[in-house]
């Protein structure tokens, strides 16, 4: 199973510890705000040439003060998928009129737009997630709503247990002679494995609820530690840069709309 990495039982997710870069040190609130602005700017890109510039800008901003080459390595599967998108649309896009043999120019442009956008979006997401451990992201959620952070943090502890249960069930059913070759057999195997897991985890829900009760959750509001994220000085320039990026794209978009 490929679900998440974990170190000493603690889920590390996509977090990259190799370097302690500028983005690693930036507070989570600033990072999330900047990522949102950069994403908005990217979505507002008006045509493919602007999109190329934006993609290059975003990747430079992500790689140089961030995790470096490691980020580009994470993008590799998406680059291959992007090439597949470009090829697919060059061959099959219904807008193709200018063609060279099997390939069409309009489809190529459409595919390239989608591919560049995909790589930039994934690059941005990776930038945020490689420099912020999942625990910090989820604790930040609790500053929006207490229970939301709690749900995510409980889940971080619960998921490894659930996976273990899944493995146990799989082994138990295999001992009883479960096998899967044909499609129907695989579906049956799925059901015989998922049903016990669901029932067991519902029992666990009851246990989890009593644990929350025992620890006084929901009784005394002062007991819980509140996480109040703050803006930190020294990181304002990156917020300003992101705002400029977003504003520049908006201006270009508005200008091209007004010209036509």
């Amino acid at each position, binding site marked *: 199973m490929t679900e998440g990495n974990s170190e000493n039982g603690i889920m590390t997710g996509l977090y990259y510890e190799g370097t302690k870069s500028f983005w690693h040190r930036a507070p989570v609130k600033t990072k999330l705000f900047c990522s949102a602005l950069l994403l908005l700017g990217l979505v507002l890109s008006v045509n493919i040439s602007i999109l190329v510039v934006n993609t290059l800008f975003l990747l430079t901003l992500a790689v140089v003060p961030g995790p470096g080459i490691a980020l580009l390595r994470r993008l590799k599967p998406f680059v291959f*998928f992007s090439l597949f998108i470009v090829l697919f649309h060059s061959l099959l896009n219904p807008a193709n009129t200018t063609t060279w043999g099997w390939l069409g120019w309009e489809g190529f442009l459409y595919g390239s737009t*989608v591919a560049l*956008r995909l790589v930039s979006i994934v690059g941005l*997401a990776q930038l945020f997630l490689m420099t912020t451990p999942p625990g910090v992201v989820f604790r930040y959620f609790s500053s929006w709503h207490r*229970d*939301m952070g709690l749900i995510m943090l409980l*889940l971080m502890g619960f998921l490894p247990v659930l996976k273990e249960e899944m493995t146990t069930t799989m082994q138990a059913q295999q001992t009883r002679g479960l096998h899967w070759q044909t499609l129907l057999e695989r579906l049956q195997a799925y*059901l015989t494995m998922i*049903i016990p897991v669901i029932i067991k985890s519902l029992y666990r829900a009851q246990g989890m609820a009593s644990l929350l009760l025992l620890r006084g959750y929901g009784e005394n509001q002062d007991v819980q530690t509140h996480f109040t994220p703050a803006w930190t000085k020294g990181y304002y320039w990156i917020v300003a840069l992101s705002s400029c990026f977003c504003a520049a794209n908006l201006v270009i978009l508005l200008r091209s709309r007004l010209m036509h």
Partner: protein
Amino acid sequence: MDKRLKIAIIVVGIGINIVGGTLASALKLPLFLDTIGTILAAVLLGPWLGALTGLLSNIFQGVVTNPVTIPFALVNGAVGLIVGFIALKRGFEDYVTPLLVGLILAIVAPLIGSPIAVYVFGGLTGGGVDILYGILLGSSERIFSSAFLARIPTNFVDKTISAYLVMFIVRSLPVQWKMLTERKNSKTTPVE
């Protein structure tokens, strides 16, 4: 009902979504099967908390494994909302309701999912559905409707199986669990 149990059921629902999806891809099934937990939570807790379960499971997966699942949180949230309202109206213990849920979700899930897939991936998934998408694109000449139509059969089978699975589980749950939402047509009489 107890707030702590609600939180625990949401956590468990998200866990079931993630494990269900992972198991489906591990067994190489041509289905997603990643909304079982959402449907279960929506039946037990009602539409809004069901929607929350769906939204948070995609966000969790996005943060921990694969960021591109985050936009599809909207689909998972809508599944919770729709199943929750249907379960409030009809209960979830007869043989007709899961089929109804499957039919409605076969339309609604691709209706929300396809625009996202077209915008982010150009309509491609990297799986077997792409062949059907390619054929439809060649004949219908429209990107959105091809991506939409190609997703309907998979979604129908996927959501119907999930809904029947949840129905059988909900039927065999003890009475205390079934009273989490008030239902009009429940066959079991509530016992205090």
